[in-house]
């Protein structure tokens, strides 16, 4: 909707479509310069934090998994890592590999969903995935087939395709039978081929020529593309423990927003997620994914946020290939879980959710009762950077009409796949020009 006035212009829309959930966006423009950008997302993890207090530490993985319908494994993994840190427990390598396999399943589900149904329509002139499916059903079927492979992993390892129930602090309730894991190999081979086709497909899209000045943060792991464990690291060499990262990541209340905004203490805002992971850990990608990235024209780092769809597709290849490796090497752990006895203390866990770093930190007492909880989801960590993107997009797009500019802004938000599905609230979009 456009409100016309001599001295000002307001563009508003009810809802940013194709983001997971809802929030609000407002951009103010004065004399051709962006004076304010506010992406406001209701942030229920904050309320979950209060709800967790008084609960037993063993309940955290399942309760927090219900925050997000799209990435429950991420919540389970970060919660487990934090509780195990608090109790000074390490799990076996076999359990770590099983966790990584489960996490790959979630990456496959989430990335396939975002690429095919939420993001690709932006580049193909389609209003939404329905129009894309009507125009080219085989393409959408390919995306859904990839997503189903993620579902299969979730079922085999997590016990259910949606909201897995097999994860516990210390490991799993039961270990999958080798035959159930072996049955994943063939679908994964097909998914890997489909993921490679996805990279070819999306790398042919036409992207706006935009370069962000990003401060990337991602987990680092010595020998593998970090997913379920690692140390938070900055592109320029910053490397800290999960606990140190929790201290460095400062969250601020902003008057106009219900969401907290994250900065690194003494530095500025930062970006987590596929672009950051690729820039920091790209050299650790398996050959098949690295080749796909090269063939897609990606360099060592990608700073065009609109091309995040290409990076996400490369990560899809990685997740399928890595899951296949883990399936082929699978040996059931000796025990499904290690015993975790509670002890009073603070623990921090950070893992790579599909959208970026997810930090959990808990203080528990000697009975294992949660005294304090802190959850820092990737979307809140990325908020300030997404606002920066929006500022750039609006300034570069002054010649666009209101509808086109609003559309470009919505695209800029979707580039980072913000996840706000856990919010039972509603969204407005407003662009004001004076």
């Amino acid at each position: 909707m456009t409100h016309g006035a001599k001295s000002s212009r307001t563009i508003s829309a009810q809802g940013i479509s194709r983001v997971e959930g809802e929030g609000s966006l407002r951009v103010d423009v004065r004399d051709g310069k962006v004076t304010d950008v506010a992406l406001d997302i209701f942030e229920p993890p904050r309320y979950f934090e209060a709800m967790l207090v008084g609960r037993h530490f063993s309940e955290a993985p399942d309760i927090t998994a219900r925050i997000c319908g799209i990435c429950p494994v991420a919540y389970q993994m970060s919660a487990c890592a934090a509780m195990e840190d608090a109790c000074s427990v390490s799990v076996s390598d076999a359990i770590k590999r099983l966790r990584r396999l489960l996490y790959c399943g979630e990456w496959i589900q989430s990335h396939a969903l975002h690429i095919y149904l939420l993001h690709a329509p932006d580049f193909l002139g389609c209003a939404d995935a329905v129009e894309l499916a009507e125009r080219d059903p085989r393409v959408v079927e390919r995306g859904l087939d990839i997503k189903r492979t993620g579902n299969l992993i979730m079922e085999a390892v997590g016990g259910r395709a949606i909201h897995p129930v097999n994860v516990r602090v210390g490991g799993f309730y039961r270990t999958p039978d080798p035959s159930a894991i072996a049955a994943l190999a063939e679908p994964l081979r097909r998914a890997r081929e489909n993921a490679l086709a996805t990279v070819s497909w999306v790398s042919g899209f036409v992207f706006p020529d935009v370069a962000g000045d990003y401060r990337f943060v991602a987990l680092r792991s010595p020998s593998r593309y970090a997913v379920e464990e690692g140390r938070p690291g900055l592109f320029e060499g910053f490397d800290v423990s999960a606990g140190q990262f929790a201290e460095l990541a400062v969250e601020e209340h902003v008057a106009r927003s219900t969401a907290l905004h994250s900065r690194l203490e003494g530095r500025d805002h930062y970006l987590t997620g596929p672009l950051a992971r690729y820039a920091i850990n790209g050299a650790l990608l398996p050959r098949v994914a690295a080749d796909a990235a090269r063939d897609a024209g990606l360099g060592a780092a990608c700073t065009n946020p609109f091309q995040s769809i290409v990076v996400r597709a490369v990560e899809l290849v990685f997740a399928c290939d890595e899951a296949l490796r883990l399936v082929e090497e699978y040996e059931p752990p000796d025990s499904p879980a290690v015993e975790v006895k509670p002890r009073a203390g603070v623990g921090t866990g950070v893992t790579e959710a599909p959208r970026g770093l997810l930090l959990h930190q808990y203080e528990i007492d000697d009975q294992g009762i949660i005294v304090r909880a802190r959850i820092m989801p990737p979307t809140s960590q990325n908020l300030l950077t997404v606002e920066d993107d929006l500022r750039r997009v609006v300034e570069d797009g002054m010649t666009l009409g209101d509808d086109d500019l609003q559309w470009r802004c919505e695209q800029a938000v979707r580039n980072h796949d913000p996840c706000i599905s856990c919010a039972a609230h509603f969204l407005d979009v407003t662009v004001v020009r004076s």
Partner: protein
Amino acid sequence: MSVLAPGSRVVIAGFGSEYRRDDGVGSIVAASAASLRPSTHEVGPLSDPLDLLGQWDGAALVVVIDAVRSGAAPGTIRVIEMDVGGVAGSDDERNIESHETSTHGIGLAGVLRLATALGRAPARLVLVAIEGREFGFGQELSAPVEAAVPEAVRRVVELIEEARTCA
């Protein structure tokens, strides 16, 4: 025990978070109805209607149960027949699509249109919508929504029985 005839697969899908008070009523009703009619396929609790793709393939009937916020009296139950294969959709469907009545970001009607475009739509899709009042954090249903649960379960079972009779 009811046994559904071949080709009359019924899927019951409960939507919502059990940690968001009345938002969790869909899962509660779905689980109760499925326990009364074990030959049905229950999925959920779901958060995203897109998860129905692949779950409802070949179904003769899909019953989606979800909390809504439309301004009606809390506990009000509406049974909405979704227009499978339709283009324009009913007024109720358009409301669902516009997000104004559902607590979820991606509309059920949109997923139905997507499934139709892919030839994967179920033969029949019915939404049992229960008007919620409290969507804050917690696990207790509000009193009017709690009181509506038995009737909502009865309506779902009735739909299943109809499907069985018609099969």
